[in-house]
């Protein structure tokens, strides 16, 4: 019984840490897809950029971890505004195929640029001493950084949800997701709304990239390698939803961890089978509208 309890605790804990990173990176993708109907496969590029900026600021310029994260998130958000205005906006009306190709093209370019600047090796992520090692909770100890990761992510998520539920901006976003034409005719400037949301989503992705650099290593193929994870979270969660991806991330993160821990022989299959099953059961995602 004790063994079982201890195993469940570890599975929950580590699954949750993994899920938090996935959620923070992916939530922006869900919103842009729901809001603008844009299949932005290049979303991982923003997370990758965030990771590179964070690690570089820390390793080369000695910027403290927290500041490096904020700097990376702001810088990437600004960069994404430029991209959104000049490139993405031109394809809002286009078909899915065009969007998929365009964003794959962006990934290719980003991969090449990143490799040119930072080289092919993964970036070093040296955590501040206060966050490394183990933290003792009395009944057992957990890795400090992952504990911190879960805590900070939960705070972020609460702020994000409150922002969407309680602020004027959030109300506009929800309205535009529900019915864009109606929102427009009510005088909501959807163009500006799109840009702001896109920037917010990209900034969050960058934050996730930096926060998660310890779990998802920052290297040139990042945007490709983890793309499937981000897409899974969004597709299973449901487009346009804020909560859907959270549930999906926790579900996938915890079940992935559980199966790797309990039956490693099938570890790599489970996540894909789970995704296929979930999507066939609810093609629009758990919280999406069909």
């Amino acid at each position, binding site marked *: 019984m004790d063994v079982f309890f201890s195993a469940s605790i570890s599975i929950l804990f580590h699954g949750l840490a993994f899920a938090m990173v996935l959620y923070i990176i992916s939530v922006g993708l869900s919103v842009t897809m729901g809001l603008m109907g844009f299949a932005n496969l290049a979303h991982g590029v923003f997370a990758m950029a965030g990771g590179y900026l964070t690690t570089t600021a820390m390793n080369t310029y000695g910027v403290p971890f927290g500041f490096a994260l904020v700097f990376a998130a702001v810088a990437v958000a600004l960069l994404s505004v430029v991209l959104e205005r000049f490139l993405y906006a031109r394809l809002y009306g286009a078909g899915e195929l065009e969007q998929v190709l365009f964003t794959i093209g962006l990934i290719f370019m980003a991969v090449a640029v990143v490799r040119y600047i930072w080289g092919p090796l993964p970036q070093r992520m040296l955590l501040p001493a206060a966050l490394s090692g183990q933290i003792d909770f009395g009944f057992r100890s957990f890795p400090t950084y992952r504990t911190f990761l879960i805590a900070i992510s939960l705070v972020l998520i609460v702020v994000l949800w409150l922002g969407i539920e309680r602020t004027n901006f959030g109300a506009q976003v929800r309205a535009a997701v529900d019915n864009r034409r109606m929102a427009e005719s009510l005088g909501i400037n959807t163009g500006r709304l799109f840009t702001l949301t896109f920037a917010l989503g990209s900034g969050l992705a960058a934050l996730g990239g930096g926060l998660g650099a310890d779990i998802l290593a920052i290297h040139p193929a990042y945007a490709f390698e983890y793309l499937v994870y981000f897409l899974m979270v969004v597709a299973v969660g449901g487009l346009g939803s804020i909560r859907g991806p959270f549930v999906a991330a926790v579900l996938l993160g915890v079940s992935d961890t559980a199966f790797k821990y309990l039956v490693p022989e099938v570890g790599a299959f489970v996540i894909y089978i789970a995704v296929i099953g979930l999507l066939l059961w609810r*093609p629009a995602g758990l919280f999406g509208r069909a």
Partner: protein
Amino acid sequence: MIFKRPSSSDSAPSDSAVEQMVRSHRLRPLELLPWIVVVGAYFVFPEYLPLGSQILIMILFAISLDLILGYAGIITLGHSALFGVGAYAAGIYALHVTGEPLSGLVVAAVAAGIVGFVSGLVILRTHGLTLLMLTLAITFLIAELANKAGFITGGADGLQGIAMQEIFGQFRFDMFGRTAYVYSAVVLFLVWLFARLLVHSPFGRSLTGIRENVTRMHAIGTPVRKRLVTVYTISAMLAGLAGGLLTHTTQFVGLSVLSFERSGEIVIMLILGGIGRLYGAFVGAAVYMIAQDELAKADPVFWYFWIGLLLVLIVMFARGGILGLVDQALRLVRRKP
């Protein structure tokens, strides 16, 4: 809206649908051009036949993709799963049953067809991102299965020891790649004839209808899902055929036949050439493979940058791909006098 085929809007409104269909069946002289190139290349570039046969195989693979992506509008990033199933089926058959190639091709096509049919039945109920995600998940799943099942697939080391027999007991697969080239060319020719027939048939037309306006096709009583599953299965068989050809001509199968990269690459080739017109596959695969062979040598790191930029430019300015640009140029020339 998906890439429009320029030809579909060219027809004068006075044509009856039947006349139009009969006309499109007729072979235009220009359609023979690729075959002149295929035959000519054999004699002009005898030293480039290994590359040539791989280009032919990629053309075949791209045609199979065009049927579902270009004609039926099914967006997939998992077509390599079907290609890979064909490749492995051909390899395992050659290793354990017989090295006779032609029956091997049938095995490859049937195996991929079965996987295509079953997965098509399941996933074609969905569309958009969900469909894209499902094709991805199935590809990763099959790739992982092939890695796990090392006792039949050879796992990451690849399937070794495939020894192909002579075709018709006559033509040995030689080191210079002559047999491989002719073999691939003949199979591609037959597939081309078939695909041409298919897309100009009422069945092919109904696919375009589904792509352009599903609701209307439902309304006029077309069994939409049945059609989609059928074309998906046919496409899977052709992809399997391409995979089988690759196995036969290289006498080896590795996990890379199932990779997500291969799925992405084939989509890029097709888009580059032009989608929904059969010949885009020829142009795109040839241009991409030759460019990769030449350019990647000079600048391997930035090769991906240029490919990425090209994709962005195509989407922004040339949605019909290379053939679309040719069309536009021709129209400009014709309009002038």
